[in-house]
């Protein structure tokens, strides 16, 4: 293991007194031994925000270094400064001891830094193979691109990641998780001395996460430094050697991960004391289930859509959380979209409160009280150029206006409530959503749907990319909402979240219902069994709509 090493710490903020004691060994020493990539006293300001404030950071060869912090703590910004996307306002970068400055990501890549950015950054319209080999296509002897080789190598490469897709398929036809794996394959297949991953697992399944870990292990053995950002604590503890904590753009701590327990780490991230943190459990769902109503609010029967959905039936009861489980591409998102009228169906019926909705559209679904939080927040969620306020009230606008004229006062009231309730961190409600950190964007979207006061809430990966604190808040919010009588459909790739949060789980496979778990069956072992399809799903359970929820 690497020797304990520390970075000069900035003066503690006022909150320091309350903080957990930081292990003393983590201080001292100036010249970090074997550092590949260093940032010294870098600061980065955006209009109205100090995203990085005098942060010093170093990454050593062969280590896997965790970078943690709340949403908006500055993790992605630090990464972008390290890789030439942003220029630091102050401070300098060093690569193997030499001072460097990257004017463009291109230069950082040339220098051997390979990065997977937080939002999947590939070209959606181009094929999988082209994306992987962009900028370094294999050439034949005429200097022309050798597509045969490119497709072969892509298939091989992705096989190593357990992903089997047609390399000619346009990227955007893949699910977000698969796209993430492609990005990963691209980043790792470049010969790099540093690999940076900004929340690579946020849209991955347990199985893909395992693959990723294998890849990281392999990188470590080859002496390659990995910088790893994630909000999932258990992952950090499994693979990371050291950890750096950022809070509000400041460096808080660097040290061996083994020296810190979860509580300490979380309290450092949040800047709250341990007792306060320990009160909230791992997931913040209440221990007991909810009391569901006897008649369903929402029933779906025989939803089918060319190649994607096959006779999916389910029903949702007021006051319950129904989990929707499945692997990547199993059709969970499609199901949710179909329920929200955002996807046209070949056949099937959707009923709300006993009334069948014909030719459901998004607007119609919203009117009927169905809200969908989409999974791809960049493409389908935020309107980046609009303010936080307007993004929150987007769907509710007609209700918050009189005779077509918007009422600022009414908007402000709602926005105020939700920014407080979800603890959205923004310079002001007028800040552009595009400038918020990923987690805060997610909260803005949640606020958009909650302020509609829906009867049915469909949540597609609601806690993706959300920090521990916020995740807990969102989870307890889901709990509360169900308790208040809302029907919640929860899609999550986080098995823990699904098991603890859901009262009942419908499992999809290949676009069809593979099984349903209710009551005591809602447990990890059962779920994995159905997911992995060891046995055909119990025949009687397939049409879930007929089942009693309890």
């Amino acid at each position: 293991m690497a020797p304990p090493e520390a970075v000069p710490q900035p003066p503690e903020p006022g909150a320091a007194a309350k903080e957990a004691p930081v292990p003393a060994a983590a201080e001292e020493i100036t010249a970090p031994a074997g550092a590949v990539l260093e940032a010294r006293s870098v600061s980065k300001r955006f209009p109205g925000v100090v995203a990085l404030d005098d942060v010093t950071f170093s990454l050593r060869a062969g280590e896997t270094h965790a970078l943690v912090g709340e949403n908006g703590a500055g993790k992605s910004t630090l990464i972008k400064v390290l890789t030439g996307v942003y220029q630091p306002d102050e401070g300098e970068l060093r690569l193997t001891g030499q001072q460097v400055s990257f004017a463009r990501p291109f230069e950082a890549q040339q220098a051997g830094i390979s990065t997977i950015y937080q939002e999947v950054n590939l070209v959606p319209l181009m094929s999988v193979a082209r994306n992987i080999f962009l900028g370094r296509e294999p050439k034949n002897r005429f200097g022309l691109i050798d597509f045969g080789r490119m497709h072969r190598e892509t298939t091989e490469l992705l096989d190593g990641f357990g992903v089997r897709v047609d390399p000619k398929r346009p990227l955007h036809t893949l699910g977000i998780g698969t796209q993430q794996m492609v990005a990963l394959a691209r980043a790792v297949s470049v010969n790099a001395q540093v690999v940076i991953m900004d929340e690579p697992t946020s849209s991955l399944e347990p199985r893909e996460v395992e693959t990723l870990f294998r890849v990281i292990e392999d990188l470590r053995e080859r002496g390659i430094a990995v910088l790893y950002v994630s909000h999932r604590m258990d992952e950090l503890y499994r693979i990371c050697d050291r950890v750096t904590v950022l809070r509000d753009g400041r460096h808080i701590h660097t040290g061996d991960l083994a020296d810190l327990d979860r509580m300490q780490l979380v309290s450092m991230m949040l800047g709250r004391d341990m007792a306060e943190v320990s009160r909230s459990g791992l997931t913040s769902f209440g221990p007991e289930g909810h009391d569901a109503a006897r008649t369903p609010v929402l029933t779906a029967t025989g939803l089918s859509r060319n190649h994607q959905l096959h006779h999916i039936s389910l029903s949702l009861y007021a006051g319950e959380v129904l989990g929707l489980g499945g692997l990547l591409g199993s059709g969970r998102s499609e199901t949710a979209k179909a329920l929200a009228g955002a996807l046209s169906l070949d056949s099937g019926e959707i009923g709300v409160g006993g009334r069948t909705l014909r030719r459901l559209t998004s607007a119609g679904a919203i009117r009927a009280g169905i809200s969908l939080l989409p999974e791809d927040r960049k493409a389908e969620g935020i309107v980046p150029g609009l303010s936080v306020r307007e993004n929150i009230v987007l769907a509710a606008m007609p209700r918050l206006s009189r005779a077509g004229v918007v009422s600022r006062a009414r908007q402000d009231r709602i926005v105020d409530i939700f920014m407080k309730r979800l603890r959205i961190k923004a310079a002001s409600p007028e800040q552009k959503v595009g400038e918020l950190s990923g987690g805060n964007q997610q909260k803005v979207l949640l606020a958009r749907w909650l302020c509609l006061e829906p009867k049915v809430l469909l949540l597609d990966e609601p806690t993706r990319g959300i920090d521990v604190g916020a995740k807990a808040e969102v989870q307890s919010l889901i709990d509360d909402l169900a308790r208040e009588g809302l029907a919640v459909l929860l899609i999550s790739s986080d098995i823990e979240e699904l098991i603890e949060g859901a009262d009942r789980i419908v499992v999809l496979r290949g676009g069809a219902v593979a099984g349903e778990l209710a009551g005591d069956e809602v447990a990890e072992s059962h779920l994995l069994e159905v997911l992995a399809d060891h046995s055909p799903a119990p025949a009687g359970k397939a049409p879930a709509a007929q089942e009693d929820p309890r």
Partner: protein
Amino acid sequence: MNETSPAPVAQAPAPRKTPAAAGGGAPRPVTGAPPPLGQRLAELLQRQGVLAVLLTVVIVASFIYPTFATLDNARGVTVQASFLAVVALGMTMVIITGGIDLSVGSVFALGGVLAAWASQWGFLAALFVPLVVCGAIGLLNGFLVARAGMAPFIVTLATLLGARGILLAFTDEGATTYLVPKGSAFAELGQGSVRGFGYPILIALVLFGIGGLVLQRTSFGQTLFAVGGSSDAATLMGLPVARTKVLVYALSGLLAGLAGALNAARLSSGVTIVGVGMELDAISAVVIGGTLLIGGAGSISGTLWGVLLLAVIQNLINQIGSLNSSYQSVVSGGFLIVVVVAQRYLARSRRTT
């Protein structure tokens, strides 16, 4: 189609069988021999709705107008279309990067005037001068778009004015017309022909061949698609985004200048009034050819069909006979709607996933 989706955990290595692929259309073999010719043709037509439209129009017109499907007519139509084709080639590349070049019409005219002026010093000068000047204008466009981060629409709108201004200044407000020496090699370039098909046609075809290769089979071409598909992603992937954009506008300027020079050679003079509105024709051809205006997708061959389709429509309007000029506009506007809508629905039918 499910065969390409991620395989389930348990049976990763086995070829995936979709349990519920009923009615899933023809399952595409993962590997294997290329499909039969008929199927390939069908696929081609589907991918390029414009080709289908073009063929339909040509076939129908051949039956209705006996003077349409003649070799003579084909020669005339194609040679006139070749200049627009060369311009549209550059435009295609620009549009694929998500940009647009409105200056091509003016640059085309300027290229012609410069070529005619320089032709007094011989063949090479007549090509070199317009290419240098027009390339420089393209380069200016590129720098303003890529390095200064200005919107292509407005930058090239300004150079549309600017190039026309330079042309007027160069010709004493249009009073001077430079002539290409009769019988010179340069004049031959525009007027000569092989079996009645003018050199400009051959030049355009060669350029399209090269353009197709560049676009599909070189890193530069791939970068164009990446830049157009997602400029941010391309930057983050470490592609030379700015350099590519500069190059592509320079290329567009060059090609417009070349087309202008060829046209001057054909007309034997540097006519000042040509090229007005040519940018819109080029853009329509590109878009009709299936290239997305937002960038990231498109094809050179589509553009070629688009150019031909526009030329054929024009020709047909003349075949129809004595249409008043106002009706001509109405008819070509109507035709345009029919064509793009038809192309749109043809293109849509393959996106049924």
